[in-house]
């Protein structure tokens, strides 16, 4: 049963490579819908996996899975309109890769064996590489090359980390399966030295994929060169998948009583990412790169919160969910802007408020949400993280955190104002608006933002319970 959730898109993904254009789009949306239903069934029933020991349903995995599934469905609806409006060569490769990407990410969320987890993460890199190269330009080629090479090398580090954890098992003389859940149970008996070394390598490895500074260099390139639906997937859910690996390893560290060690490193990497994002966002002149740096910032916030512990972990998970919802809506809106103005540079856009009013509403609301304004969820998440940091006496770290957020807000606001309200100067090419805002290309963003809004006021009990289950395993909670 558990395996069906990732096998279904795997099969349809392969089939989609050979389908004609018209059918491919329907298959994309159909797979998204089926996947959403399967994920909801999985959420309600929480069955045992057939390949027990390799796959398992865990609270943190379920949270990511539901986010992936919801996002993919909405993004696939958007993609229908996007593909009609833009010209993409070899559309079947694009659609096939999208679906395979969904399959591999689903596999990540359901993996329990540490090596299977690694295999799934590396598979996400491979499945998403063709997405970045969709436009077949020299810039997109460069972005793909950097993405594949940097991520593969990074993830190789995570493989080394996983091997070192095996070594800690060997030296500690424990005989259990190599799954995250089994390792967490016997964590106290593992050799602490090798466990620490393993954690560092895993953090560097999956951290590369998650976009933590200073290993983030591939991220702005890949996110800006990929077509917007793919960027939305990369930013909204792929980064969470990589975070899941760090989360699960941190869980072993917590159970082994080494959470001080791993927490400190997480805090350091988190702050570094937020600072790096603050530096680059201020002088950014491309809007998609700006959104990419904002993703680095948010991943930094999540890592920071996870490292602080206590109530901040709860905040980090809240941030993770809402970042996915809001950031993917922003990337989809950026797709509309790109189609409308035909340019990625901020100074070649302008006056969006009257030219594309519906996209403007989505983009501006998304901006408010991602900057941490109430009533969107990131506000609550960041508040919990700051409270957690003060409670645990991380005064300096909290100071840097708050200051960087202010800088990022300033930079972000400046650029968004330019896009929205500046006068639009017609370029040399004399390009005019190429997009009428079709319902299918604005409603997905609205639904994503409304979901974020709704989750702020009302969290269903089952969702709340799952979040609490996930965070108590690494010493978090609302107390």
């Amino acid at each position, binding site marked *: 049963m558990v395996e069906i959730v990732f096998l279904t898109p795997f099969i349809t993904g392969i089939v989609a490579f050979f389908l004609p254009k018209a059918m491919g789009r329907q298959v994309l949306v159909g797979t998204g819908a089926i996947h959403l239903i399967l994920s909801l069934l999985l959420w309600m029933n929480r069955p045992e996996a057939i390949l027990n020991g390799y796959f398992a349903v865990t609270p943190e995995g379920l949270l990511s899975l539901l986010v992936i599934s919801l996002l993919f469905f909405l993004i696939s609806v958007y993609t229908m309109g996007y593909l009609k409006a833009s010209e993409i060569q070899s559309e079947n490769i694009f659609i096939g890769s999208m679906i395979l990407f969904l399959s591999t990410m689903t596999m990540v969320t359901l993996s329990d064996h540490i090596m299977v987890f690694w295999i799934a993460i590396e598979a996400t890199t491979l499945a998403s590489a063709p997405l970045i190269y969709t436009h077949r330009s020299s810039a997109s*080629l460069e*972005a793909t*090359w950097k993405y594949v090479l940097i991520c593969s090398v990074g993830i190789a580090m995570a493989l*080394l980390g996983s091997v070192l954890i095996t*070594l800690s098992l060997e030296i500690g003389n424990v005989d259990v399966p190599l799954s995250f859940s089994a390792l967490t149970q016997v964590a106290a008996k593992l050799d602490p030295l090798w466990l620490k070394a393993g954690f560092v390598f895993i953090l560097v490895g999956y951290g590369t994929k998650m976009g933590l500074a200073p290993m983030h260099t591939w991220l702005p390139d890949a996110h800006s060169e990929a077509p917007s639906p793919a960027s939305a997937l990369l930013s909204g859910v792929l980064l969470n998948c990589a975070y899941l690996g760090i989360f699960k390893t941190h869980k072993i560290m917590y159970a082994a009583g080494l959470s001080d060690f791993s927490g400190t490193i997480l805090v350091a990497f988190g702050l570094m990412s937020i600072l790096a994002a603050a530096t680059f966002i201020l002088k950014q002149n491309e809007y998609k790169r700006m959104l990419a740096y904002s993703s680095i910032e948010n991943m930094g916030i999540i890592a920071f919160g996870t490292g602080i512990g206590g109530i901040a972990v709860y905040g980090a998970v809240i941030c993770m969910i809402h970042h996915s919802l809001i950031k993917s809506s922003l990337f989809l809106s950026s797709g509309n802007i790109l189609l409308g103005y035909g340019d990625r540079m901020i100074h070649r856009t302008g006056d969006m408020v009257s030219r594309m009013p519906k996209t403007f509403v989505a983009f501006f609301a998304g901006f408010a949400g991602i900057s941490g304004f109430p009533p969107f969820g990131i506000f609550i998440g960041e508040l919990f993280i700051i409270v957690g940091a003060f409670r645990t006496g991380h005064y300096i770290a909290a100071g840097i955190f708050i200051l960087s957020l202010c800088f990022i807000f300033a930079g972000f606001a400046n650029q968004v104002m330019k896009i929205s309200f500046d006068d639009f100067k017609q370029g040399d090419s004399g390009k005019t608006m190429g997009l009428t805002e079709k319902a299918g290309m604005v409603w997905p963003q609205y639904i994503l933002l409304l979901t974020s809004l709704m989750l702020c006021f009302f969290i269903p009990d089952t969702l709340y319970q799952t979040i609490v289950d996930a965070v108590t395993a690494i010493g978090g909670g609302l107390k």
Partner: protein
Amino acid sequence: MMHPVDTILSLVLLSVLFSFGSSRLPGLILVVGFQGIVASIVPFFIGHGMSAGGVIFTFVTLAVRGIIIPMSIYWVIKKVAIRREVEPIIGYHASIFCGLGLIVAATFISRQLNIPTISDYTLLFPAAIALLVSGMFLLMARRNAIAMVLGYIMMENGIYLIGTTFSVRARHIVEFGILLDVLAGVMIMAIILQNIKQTFDDVDTALLRTLKD
């Protein structure tokens, strides 16, 4: 007495030096292929009692790491007739000197660590560390994109060499999955290399620096 594993591993250490001094790509590919073969046959000598599945898996690994992966890179060179220099950022003499330092450091570190399970095989851990670090060195110190991919493969071989000693626990199916990922990764890199050559007419990564802030 010296264990046979140590004898072949000493060749791996020498091959690291060779790869640092090698200026031409075909030579580098041969070295990487050799390292792949050694990394995949080492489990044969480290007696964990091989099952039939284990033997088959070892042969598959040998075929992939020692033959298919190096051949696919060689095929890229043939197909796009790329200039066969590796375009060093750090010169060859300096590279060899770094290599020597690396081998000494790797041996020293593994003595300090003193891991009980592999204490019979003196050179296993040093060879693995040397492969890992020299792969990274090639990634950083060469501008030619193919040399960088070869560096990545070298790193993977190093990790496999460490992993193979502790992987009694990991099932073959899992190891097979890892192997498949690495293979698919190299294939995708090979495709990207061809596209880079077609677009830029060279595989010098200095051309790939237009995207920045």
